[in-house]
């Protein structure tokens, strides 16, 4: 352990450095919350003036959380944590593993904290003491003639708490790095009724990443509450792998779809100019078995759309009366048996058309593209593991303490003296209580005939 005396190692293992780095990270982080991140230089010049905008650009404050100086600070903190743990953890583990029975406190010292019990009986009934202490699960070591030593020990592992927290921070950083280098954060717009096989990486790279399968959007829906605020954004998605549908799920904002390590999040949506979605359900009356067919079609205004499976055709004649294009629509309907029909329907209004051979239920709506955030993050479980470890470490550090109580039985004159001596790393109140409880259970054992003092 020669290295540990190295000046650089000492500096990097010091808590002073940690305090310094944490302060700096905290203080500099403020800048990025005040200055909006990732905007153009024109934006900053307009908002903060040209001089400040140039300073921001030079210091990378416009993208500060991914700037080299900020990442450098984080890296230094990680180094600090690693070296601090490396230097100190072995010592702590040694204390945890130490057999405290072999190193009892010297009772000859003026141990003012000791609880002393004494008895007139010259011989100690070791087994009686053991059974009196049974609820403290004592360990016993044989002393010299007429003496014995018991140890009650609890929470030795709690000494590792602070190191668990430090290691958990490193784990979280590792998880973040794994995500950054082995995962991606991408985006794709999928029009209703079509599929996408690749997604676009965000950030500076703008690369196109092939998915290896296709994501198909059957339907996108926005629902609103009565007061007009949005209630739900929902995309009905299918995953097509090698041309086959393998998965089907409706995703909403808090409920993404996962397939082959890739997660699709409902993120945004877009109206498709001049494109409409028509849902048709045909119910045949004349057929021997009442068959029902539902289909969704996409069409543009003023273009006749023939549907051979249904034997019908549709044509949007007008998309609105006031020009905003969201209904009431004028829709021309035609099938084999009658003359064309012109219907006036509202957006998403469900209309039934009864013809001699079949009943059609139709509804016409704006066509949308759904905006999906596509994330592959193999590091997220490492991050979560780190989070769990952090909570465990904090619990160890603050709610548990290493309590050791030695019960030393010695011959003293004609009688016996029992000293209850304790040690703890933090919770002294708990230590005193434990000592008192041990004393109380020894005193309550009548055959020992103990008294205080």
């Amino acid at each position, binding site marked *: 352990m020669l290295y540990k005396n190295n000046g650089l190692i000492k500096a990097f293992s010091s*808590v002073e450095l940690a305090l310094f780095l944490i302060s700096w990270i905290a203080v500099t982080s403020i800048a990025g*919350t005040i200055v909006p991140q990732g905007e153009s230089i024109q934006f900053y010049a307009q908002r903060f003036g040209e001089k400040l905008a140039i300073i921001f650009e030079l210091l990378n404050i416009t993208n500060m959380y991914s700037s080299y100086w900020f990442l450098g600070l984080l890296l230094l903190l990680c180094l600090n944590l690693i070296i601090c743990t490396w230097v100190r953890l072995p010592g702590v583990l040694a204390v945890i593993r130490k057999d405290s029975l072999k190193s009892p406190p010297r009772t000859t010292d003026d141990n003012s904290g000791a609880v002393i019990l004494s008895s007139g009986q010259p011989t100690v009934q070791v087994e009686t003491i053991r059974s009196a202490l049974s609820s403290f699960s004592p360990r016993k070591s044989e002393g010299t003639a007429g003496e014995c030593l018991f140890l009650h020990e609890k929470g030795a592992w709690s000494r590792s708490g602070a190191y668990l927290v430090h290691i958990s921070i490193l784990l979280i950083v590792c998880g973040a790095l794994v995500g950054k280098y082995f995962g991606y954060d991408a985006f794709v717009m999928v029009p209703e009724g079509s599929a996408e096989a690749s997604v676009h990486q965000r950030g500076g790279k703008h690369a196109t990443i092939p998915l290896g399968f296709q994501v198909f959007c059957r339907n996108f829906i926005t629902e609103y509450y009565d007061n007009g605020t949005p209630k739900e954004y929902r995309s009905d998605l299918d995953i097509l792998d090698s041309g086959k549908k393998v998965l089907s799920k409706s995703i909403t904002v808090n409920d993404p779809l996962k397939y082959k390590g890739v997660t699709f999040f409902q993120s945004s949506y877009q109206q498709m100019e001049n494109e409409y979605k028509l849902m048709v359900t045909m119910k045949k009356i004349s057929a021997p078995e009442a068959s029902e067919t539902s289909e969704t079609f996409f069409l543009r205004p003023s273009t006749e759309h023939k549907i051979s499976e249904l034997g019908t055709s549709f044509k949007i004649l007008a998309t609105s009366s006031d020009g905003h294009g969201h209904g009431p629509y004028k829709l021309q309907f035609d099938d084999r048996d009658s003359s064309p029909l012109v219907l006036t329907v509202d957006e998403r209004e469900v209309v039934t058309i009864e013809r001699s051979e079949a009943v059609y239920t139709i509804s016409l709506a704006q066509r949308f593209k759904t905006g999906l955030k596509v994330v592959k993050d193999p590091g997220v479980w490492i991050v979560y593991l780190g989070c769990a470890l952090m909570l465990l470490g904090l619990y160890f550090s603050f709610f548990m303490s290493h309590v050791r109580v030695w019960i030393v039985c010695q011959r003293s004159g004609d009688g016996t003296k029992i000293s209850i001596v304790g040690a703890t790393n933090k919770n002294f109140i708990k230590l005193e209580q434990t000592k008192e409880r041990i004393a109380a259970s020894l005193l309550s054992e009548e055959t020992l005939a103990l008294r205080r003092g």
Partner: protein
Amino acid sequence: MDSSVILGATTFIYLLATVFYVAHAVFRNSLAGKAGFATLCMAILANSAGIALRWLESHQQGIGYVPLSNMYESLVFFALCIASLSIYIELSHKLRHLGAYIVPFAFLAMAYASFSAEFGKEIRPLLPALQSNWLAAHVITCFIGYASFTVSCGMAIFYLIKKSRPGASTDSDNEEPTSGSFSILETINMINYQMIVFGFIWLTAGIITGAIWANSAWGTYWSWDPKETWSLITWFVYALALHARYTRGWDGVRMSVVSLVGFVSVIFTYYGVNFLLSGLHSYGG
């Protein structure tokens, strides 16, 4: 009865409790102390009833949700957390006049919730991003943390006032009720530290639940959004306090000052980010 009526009334009960506790602390009147305790218990009951009723009302309106979704509802819960901690501290340390430095915060939170015009108080259906079970977990953990830090700030103020008063270091402290063998200053100092520790653990849990939620709603557990960054800054401030205590023995006045700085950071995380900065986390307003 309407939940907003109950919660409005709760504000005045907190005010009454504050008056009693302050009277007890100033005049050392034990009757005022008892009245303060009884009033505070009543306020907690009314506060809880108000939250429960609001929950029920949201269900009656067909949009049932846990009422922790906006600035108003979080302030109401914040007040409840502070008041509950005050009762806990009073019972565990048998020190009544500490309430004079804690209960006013509960009153202020509740009064701000009731009288501010900056945010709406009506029950509104949840936006898509908020429709998650993580909402309750995230808000509850965060606000228990914030409430602990608030109590620690109250203790810090008490400590600094007591310390700065002439003769504070003499034996005049002996006449005051203390818990166990500790002097009053030591006790305040201890509670301050305990609340920092308690708050730190809950804030950690709050940041973690927030990260997990963000990952399930937006696909990133951390995006350096102002709210996230400020919660991390707050976490760092208290982490600093804990390290300074363990390694450099920071205590007493220094710890109290750190506690005040931490509280400023908490308030900025909670309030400042919502109203002064813009970001993803804009539901509070």
